[in-house]
């Protein structure tokens, strides 16, 4: 909030949902549309034949677990913030951040494993799609990490506590969404390879 903003009377909300939460949900809808279009393009292209099947790298199973655990961390951090346990709050957010980073590294290793099995970005579209879908998700995950860093910083400045939950709630909504998005992509890719 800049200085001028606090000077003027804020617009009054009508609904009981906070505007930032609403904006987050709309933002999530745009990401859903992005991935929906990618995966439907995938299906349309796959239906046309000439499709090289690929093996899912083993490490993706583990990275799925890691991302899930980071989601649990975020969930716990919200609980900690609600009961004003600040040490826990910071620990859980940091934990989520570390696990999120670990996930990214594992995805990268997964890509290397893919290349060892002869699946490259160039080549049959099945492989290209695999890289694009995982890459696009990783890109969004990086944005999620940035959001986590901001939340962490806010928690150190004591800007997150039981009476001031919006930032953390927005952050957790986004992070859970990224988790669910990955699980969707993972199952999708397993099923339609």
């Amino acid at each position, binding site marked *: 909030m800049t200085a001028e903003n606090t000077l003027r009377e804020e617009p009054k909300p009508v609904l009981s949902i906070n505007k930032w939460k609403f904006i987050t949900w709309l933002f999530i809808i745009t990401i859903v549309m992005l991935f929906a*279009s990618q995966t439907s393009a995938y299906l349309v292209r796959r239906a046309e034949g000439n499709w090289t099947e690929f093996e899912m790298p083993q490490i993706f199973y583990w990275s799925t677990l890691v991302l899930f655990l980071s989601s649990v961390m975020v969930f716990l951090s919200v609980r900690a913030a609600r009961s004003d346990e600040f040490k826990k709050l910071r620990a859980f957010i940091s934990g989520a951040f570390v696990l999120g980073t670990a996930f990214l590294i594992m995805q990268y290793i997964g890509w290397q494993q893919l290349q060892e099995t002869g699946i490259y970005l*160039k080549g049959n579209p099945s492989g290209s799609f695999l890289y694009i879908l995982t890459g696009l998700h990783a890109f969004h995950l990086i944005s999620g990490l940035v959001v986590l860093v901001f939340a962490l910083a806010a928690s150190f400045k004591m800007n997150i506590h039981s009476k001031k939950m919006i930032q953390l709630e927005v952050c957790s909504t986004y992070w859970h969404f990224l988790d669910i998005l990955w699980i969707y992509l993972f199952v999708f890719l397993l099923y339609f390879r």
Partner: protein
Amino acid sequence: MSTAAAAHVEHGHEEHHDLGFIRSYIFSEDHKVIAKQYLISGIIWAVIGGLMSLVFRLQLGFPDMDMSWLKPFLGQWINESGKLDANFYLALVTMHGTIMVFFVLTAGLSGTFSNFLIPLQIGARDMASGFMNMLSYWFFFISSVIMFWSIFIETGPAGGGWVIYPPLSALAEANPGSGTGMTLWLVSMALFIVSSLLGGINYVTTVINLRTKGMTFDKMPLTIWAFTFTAILGILSFPVLLSAALLLIFDRSFGTSFFLSDIYINGHALPNQGGSPILFQHLFWFLGHPEVYIVILPALGLTSEIIATNSRKPIFGYKAMIFSMAGIMFLAFIVWAHHMFMTGMNPFLGSVFMLLTLIIAVPSAVKAFNYITTLWRGNIIFTPAMLFAIGLVSFFVSGGLTGIILGNSALDIQLHDTYFVVAHFHLVMGSAAFFGMIGGVYHWFPKMFGKMMNKTLGYVHFWFTFIGVYLVFFPMHYIGIAGFPRRYYQWSGFETFNTYADLNAFISVAAILTFSAQLIFIFNFIYSIFWGKKATANPWKSTTLEWTTPVNPGHGNWPGEIPTVYRWPYDYSKPGAKEDFIPQDVPYSATPESNLPEENEMISEEKEIENIEYNHNIPD
């Protein structure tokens, strides 16, 4: 700035200090300033896009003309013998389409009027997030700069048509414009999409969350409904264009084959295998069709307001208007393949899409019918805005009719990619949306700049433009039916088309005259900002909330409390009322002489509405 400062003093914010020029006019977070930024950018782009069309109209109308005199502007694109470079012709057509569809009629139209009118008409101090709103404009600005820059590069701007179909757009070897020009196009559009999404998310959030007391959904002006539907369309469809652009970028720069397969260039096979160019068309038109409604819906919303106000009658079928817009919005997502009848699509699928396409004619016709019945027996006041609104209805009907013809997959075999399509969409989309935008400027100019535009110039502008548009686009139907394909540099190589030489020349002359008439508008616009007659707070005797603000609404829009809303926005010429309009913030208890029985019953609810206390525990 002084007005904004004044508003603050009235608020009792003594600690206020001036924001300075940069924060109040350039990186402003005020929705009114951002709206004006969009408007001015849109007008500049419209001039550029219009001039481009004149150049290629000269080529089409007078293929033998010596264009050496254009050399100072076009440089190397005019060759020694005074001919326009053929590749540059394609680039001009592409840029014209891109600029007009996205930069003028999406950003210039939605950006201006959604920003300006949403907070003013729903009774909010500003947008949900002024910062996101500012970002939205500046993303658009950077995107504009990149697109503008691409016009001047050595190989010329993108030349694959505004629909950028691969493989033409994917292979740098295919066309000079498919090199750097196409790269810049893609970068610029990616930024444009970000800008649109930021804008759209903000509009929807504002409408849902920040309405004033009493402004229930059934009391919202149709403009607001239209802007909301437009924003939802954008939120759902722009990401899909981003998808298509992303895959195309990978095909172009990273050697993937999403859209490429079995291609030979100069006898050499490219390595790309297994891609499908049709896939691109599916992705593109999944945005592309909703996009045409993103362009027209705001214009229809503005028209509803202008027509009701200047007919001094309630809009006919308020609910029907909302439902038909909702219907159009829904159908817009399931008709995209009518642009692809000729891609070798399964004929059964073709007839499914044909059926869905033709269904769109129903809600569209409902809207046209409602406009006409609103005009019917009204006390019409022909302001320039009103004339443009009526012109919009005319174009929407005549262009919509050819849509029904094109929607038949069998007829489309003949008409696809001919000038018939060009005529169709220039009437129904191009001209109609343009008229909506211009009408909006004439109508809301007093609120934007506190001045009145010159009426006489407005009338002259209208008649030249209205007649001019029909003279330009009506003959194109004939040329199209005769089979003349679009995006052809020259037709004189085909014996059959020589009969149309005169008609083509005629169209070009009409286009030049129509464009020139726009200079009247630009003059009027600039002149009136500085030297126009001072406006009153409510010059058109209108009912909606924006007219309850001061002549120059400051920061926060209303100096005092935000007005409360008691009635719908179309109480014009109500029997028994003292005046022929009752603003939305006049309670029923103040107008016993004109209330209907059910409205008398609502008087008891007024106290409740006034006492609504928003839950201030919801932090922002």
